[in-house]
């Protein structure tokens, strides 16, 4: 493709600290071979290969060159990022709780999230998973609350040194409320409070409360 930014600086490596060894002016033809994080490996017509940052290629890479500001491009970028992955740490009924989750955003406000978690207590451990529907009414705000409900499964097994206890296998329902803080274009911090209801049998259910906080990022 043809460079439409005033010039691009080619570096020896994919990082801001690597030296610039060549500058290619506007209207030169380049070929983009590879992307690594925010850096593009570029080959010029006379076979010089170097790494160029995304910022410097922004208008070159925009469909209608020059009509968009850098901020617009960032916003577009952000809106095309739909898949998020995160991990959180917290307490599940006063025991340490680790969870890993991934979510897919259907629209600005609606997303679906899958969570796997593990509670590691002194006497027993619990594995659980659930799939939630999340609503985030003010997702354009930097600090934005969200609400969710979901269903999943729950398996509790005691540490082997205890005698005469059984593993518990149950379905669970979960209701969540939390808040997200958008740190940057890619990173999000979140904290949430969840109320788990384990349906142990037709007539018996137990409730657990969990607090977690963690970090996530958009792919």
């Amino acid at each position, binding site marked *: 493709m043809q460079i*439409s930014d005033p010039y691009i600086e080619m570096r020896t*490596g994919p990082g801001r600290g690597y030296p610039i060894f060549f500058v290619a002016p506007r209207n030169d033809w380049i070929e983009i*071979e590879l*992307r*690594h994080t*925010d850096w593009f490996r570029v080959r010029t017509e006379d076979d010089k290969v170097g790494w160029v940052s995304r910022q410097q290629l922004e208008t070159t890479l925009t469909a209608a060159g020059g009509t968009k500001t850098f901020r617009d491009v960032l916003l577009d970028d952000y809106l095309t990022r739909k898949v998020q992955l995160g991990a959180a740490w917290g307490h599940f009924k006063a025991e340490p709780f680790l969870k890993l989750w991934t979510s897919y955003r259907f629209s600005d406000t609606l997303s679906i999230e899958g969570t796997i978690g*593990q509670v*590691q207590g002194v006497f027993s*451990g619990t594995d659980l998973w659930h799939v939630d529907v999340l609503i985030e009414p003010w997702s354009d705000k930097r600090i934005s609350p969200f609400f969710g409900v979901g269903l999943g499964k729950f398996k509790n097994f005691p540490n082997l040194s205890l005698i005469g206890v059984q593993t518990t296998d149950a379905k669970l329902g979960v209701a969540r409320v939390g808040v997200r803080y958008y740190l940057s274009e890619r990173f999000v911090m979140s904290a949430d409070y969840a109320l788990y209801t384990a349906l142990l049998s037709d007539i018996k259910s137990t409730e657990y409360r969990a607090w977690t906080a963690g970090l996530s990022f958009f792919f």
Partner: protein
Amino acid sequence: MNNKTLCKALPAIALAGMGCAALAQRTPPANNDQVVIPEVDRRDIEKPKFPSNDFEVGLFTGTYATQNFGSSWVYGARIGYHITEDFFVEGVYGQTKVSDELFRRILPGGIFATTSEKLAYYNFSAGYNLFPGEIFIGGRRARPSQFYIVGGVGSTKFADQRKPTFNFGFGYRVYLADWIALQLDLRDHVFSLDLLGRRESTQNVELTGGLTVYF
């Protein structure tokens, strides 16, 4: 000039004057031409999908020092994603065989049911490339490198106990090519263990080296 002609001429002069004013507003003087002609290049290009290699998978091996039980050979695998130039996340699974041979010398029967127990761990960690740089191999070759710090949470399964585990450490990564890197890691795994009579927090240091492929 008589009255009649003046009456006719006045509106005409007024109109002409207005026209002139309007003209003056519409066309700038010729010598005040636009100084900078914006080089806006409107193109209709379809932004192609560029090949990228933000993901990594790797294998590693090294030594894992289990507190009170000596060190043993560890091996494992990692999968990671490089979010930006500075940050990455990774998930690691590793396992090792821990022996209680030292205890068996003075304590017939030992600690474990068998002479060795499997220790397996997994963790999810976030890393920061603290000192990115370059290494020079000979006089003609330079390869990118990164010194990174890393930390995270996970779980360790050892002697039928599953323990929440924190890990932190640092590492060094050298890119042999754009798609492959050599990686050295020093990590401390901190978890509590109830094996020697009392529940206590243990520090388990691991030193590994491995190869990582980017895709």
